[in-house]
């Protein structure tokens, strides 16, 4: 019964979405306040309906109701509770429902938080958001219904893919979707503004917090995915340039450019054209991501559902949404001229450069990701594009960007010169030179030294920027608004991230061997010894466990427990790496096949400062959230009716 109710709720939500598209759009056209207000109510109603539907699906999983096909395919009565819940979105149908839930959630945020918005803009934005949601609801109802029943009812379910039974991966999709879907608001608002024919600072001021929210969530989502890959997949890497990773990264790149553009538009009234185009592009990339992951057109380790029929539907959605938006853009683009000129050596100029570099980086990732598809279309050959291409093309662009990030924020708006900044630039260069030379001597790596120098440049530049703003005294620091601290935190996060990636790439070590109990492998001063191998059964799997002790000279540093698990219900083998994470060295070992006589395959790693990769990303995300506290982002409240002053 629950499943049917959930299904009905979805159908109702679809009808509401259709009405929510038509009526407010008409209302905005005719300036009819009641029709526009309908949009507000509908948005909230739609969210409640979809939330109910999602809860219905969750309760089906929690109750292990295997008469529902989705639960039978992806759940199991013996699964731990957390994974019963995360199993709801650990499959195609459930995750699309989660996507739609978030779209409706963000849509409901417009009437809740946007009371100060001009009613026409608000109504149109709500309508466009509803239109996209309607498209996805149609997709669910016609091709990916999560509430399909199964008859006869199986005694137990198929179980969840064991790789997904993991806390990191339980949370990775929700955060990622909060990011992806969050960019639907800028998209809807961009289209609404294009319909109105006006993109101005009011629009930008309202949107900016939402771009921050979406961007921050997306940052966390990507970082979680990377962290999970590191400790779960056990091959010692944190980013593979796999197509599905790339399609999550591309909206992030576009979203970062959007974030900076909308800052400029909100305060300086320029870069309107860039901002609108970026708003459309970011969400379009989210849609492309959804399409790629679920249609199977690119080979990836992330294999989700491979279904050309669903692919066609998603492609249609993507085509109509983005095509429609870009057509509007083509029609209205000439009205979005920048009123205030600025010269290149100014903060505006630096931000345009920022946009250009991020777009260039986005283009190289895009090209690398879709190149196999394009080549197949052109001459039928099958190639794969891997890390070497991306590292060669993406890294230099990023290095350029980091270079300009160091001093860009120090520039004044509209007109400035580099000569004015001679003192801080020289100071930066001096510190960077010290860092480079010290690293080159101690670390014996020129490339590593240069990269660390770059990270230092960014860090010092950021510190100098905030210092100069605050005039180097504590009162000045306290007077800085929240968004300034957001900028400091985010840019420092990038510096930390860059430094961590450099150190991890240049100064790590790994070795692999076949070890019997008592044998060891050495990485420099560290010795990894296979102390014990055991086995057993736990929950829903059997396992082979290796105990590896790590010593440095005489001191015992830690014991790493690594396992090879076999899940009988799914007939699947996974490796759990033994990790000792720390802020300094991370010690890593994973055990493979083998037997007591011949020895076991063991791979060991020593990664320096690897956790700072994700801590840097986390700092970026938290800074984004922190910047939300800035009062300057609030729109002025609409004029309340004048109250009669009490006669005194």
């Amino acid at each position: 019964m629950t499943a049917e109710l959930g299904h009905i709720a979805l159908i109702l939500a679809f009808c509401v979405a259709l009405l929510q598209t038509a009526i407010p759009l008409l209302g905005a056209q005719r300036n009819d306040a009641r029709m526009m207000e309908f949009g507000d109510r509908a948005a909230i109603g739609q969210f409640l309906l979809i939330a109910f539907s999602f809860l219905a699906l969750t309760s089906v999983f929690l109750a292990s109701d295997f008469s529902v096909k989705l639960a039978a395919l992806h759940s199991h009565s013996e699964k731990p509770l957390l994974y019963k819940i995360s199993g709801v979105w650990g499959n195609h149908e459930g995750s699309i429902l989660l996507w739609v839930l978030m779209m409706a959630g963000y849509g409901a945020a417009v009437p809740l938080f946007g009371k100060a918005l001009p009613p026409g803009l608000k109504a149109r934005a709500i309508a466009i958001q509803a239109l996209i949601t309607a498209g996805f609801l149609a997709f669910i109802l016609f091709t990916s219904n999560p509430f399909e029943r199964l008859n006869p009812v199986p005694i137990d379910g198929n179980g969840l893919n064991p790789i997904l039974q993991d806390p990191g991966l339980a949370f990775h999709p929700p955060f990622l979707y909060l990011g992806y879907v969050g960019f639907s608001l800028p998209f809807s608002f961009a289209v609404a503004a294009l319909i109105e024919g006006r993109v101005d600072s009011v629009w930008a001021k309202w949107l900016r917090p939402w771009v921050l929210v979406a961007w921050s969530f997306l940052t966390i989502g990507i970082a979680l995915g990377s962290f999970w890959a590191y400790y779960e997949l056990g091959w010692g890497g944190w980013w593979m340039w796999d197509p599905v990773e790339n399609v999550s990264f591309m909206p992030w790149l576009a979203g970062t450019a959007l974030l900076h553009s909308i800052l400029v538009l909100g305060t300086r009234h320029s870069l309107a054209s860039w901002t609108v185009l970026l708003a459309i592009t970011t969400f379009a990339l989210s849609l492309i991501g959804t399409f790629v992951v679920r249609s199977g057109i690119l080979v990836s380790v992330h294999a989700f559902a491979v279904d050309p029929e669903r692919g066609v539907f998603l492609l249609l959605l993507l085509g109509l949404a983005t095509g429609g938006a870009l057509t509007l853009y083509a029609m209205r683009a000439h009205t979005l001229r920048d009123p205030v000129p600025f010269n290149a050596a100014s903060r505006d100029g630096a931000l345009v450069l920022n946009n250009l570099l991020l777009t260039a980086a986005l283009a190289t990732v895009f090209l690398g990701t879709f190149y196999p598809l394009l080549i197949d279309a052109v001459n039928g050959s099958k190639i794969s594009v891997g890390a070497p291409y991306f590292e060669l093309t993406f890294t230099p662009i990023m290095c350029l960007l980091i270079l300009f990030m160091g001093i860009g924020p120090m520039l004044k708006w509209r007109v400035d010169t580099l000569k004015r900044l001679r003192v801080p630039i020289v100071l930066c260069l001096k510190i960077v030179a010290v860092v480079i030379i010290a690293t080159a001597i101690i670390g014996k790596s020129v490339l590593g030294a240069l990269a660390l120098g770059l990270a230092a440049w960014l860090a010092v530049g950021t510190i100098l920027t905030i210092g100069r703003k605050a005039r180097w005294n504590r009162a000045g620091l306290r007077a800085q608004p929240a968004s300034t601290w957001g900028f400091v935190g985010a840019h420092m996060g990038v510096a930390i991230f860059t430094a961590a990636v450099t150190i991890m790439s240049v100064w790590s070590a790994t070795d692999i061997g076949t070890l019997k109990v008592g044998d060891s492998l050495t990485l420099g001063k560290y010795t990894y010894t296979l102390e014990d191998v055991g086995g057993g059964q736990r929950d829903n799997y059997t396992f082979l466990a290796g105990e590896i002790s790590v010593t440095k000279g005489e001191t015992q540093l830690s014991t790493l427990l690594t396992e090879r698990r076999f899940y009988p219900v799914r007939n699947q083998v996974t490796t759990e790496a033994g990790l000792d994470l720390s802020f300094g060295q991370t010690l890593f070992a994973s055990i493979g096949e083998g037997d007591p006589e011949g020895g076991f395959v063991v791979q060991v790693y020593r990664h320096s400062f690897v956790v700072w990769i994700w801590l840097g990303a986390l700092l970026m995300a938290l800074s984004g959230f922190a910047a939300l506290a800035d009062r300057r982002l609030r729109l002025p409240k609409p004029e309340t009716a004048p109250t009669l002053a009490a006669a005194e």
Partner: protein
Amino acid sequence: MKLRGLIPLGLFILLLGALAFGLTRDPRILPSELIEKPFPAFALENLEGDALLNPSILNNQVSLVNVFGSWCVACTVEHPQLMALRDKPDLQLVGIDWRDTREAANRWLVRNGNPYDVIIFDPNSKLIVELGVTGAPETFIVDKAGKIRYKHVGIITADDWDETLRPLVESLQ
């Protein structure tokens, strides 16, 4: 409508075209790199253990080289089709026994029948790796000059033989 504003839309339509095309292709199908190339060199014993084999066994006749193993369940499904080809005078059947033991392979052949004219014993995947084999059963058609002409991944059904393999074998005679 200014033309410059149409650029994003134009690029997007191109992308849509590429994506739509992508839906018609299966990225997991990988054609063999060895088509039109000579059969890789190898020096392996035969299953009986009394002779050393090399690619010269493929010369001067059309060969069907079939990768199998006693552990391979799908191979028993295609085996009757291979048995039906046993007595064809113009086609040499070469088997590659992969990752197996001589005892298990012989037992399997006794139970299911032995269609092969000669069987290469490859327990350590030496030839398999050279051939780019990803699983069993896989079958190669080799022409009289020892060049690989076709690779068939998976079970050979009667349809596969009638529609694809037999015409190819006959055209190579």
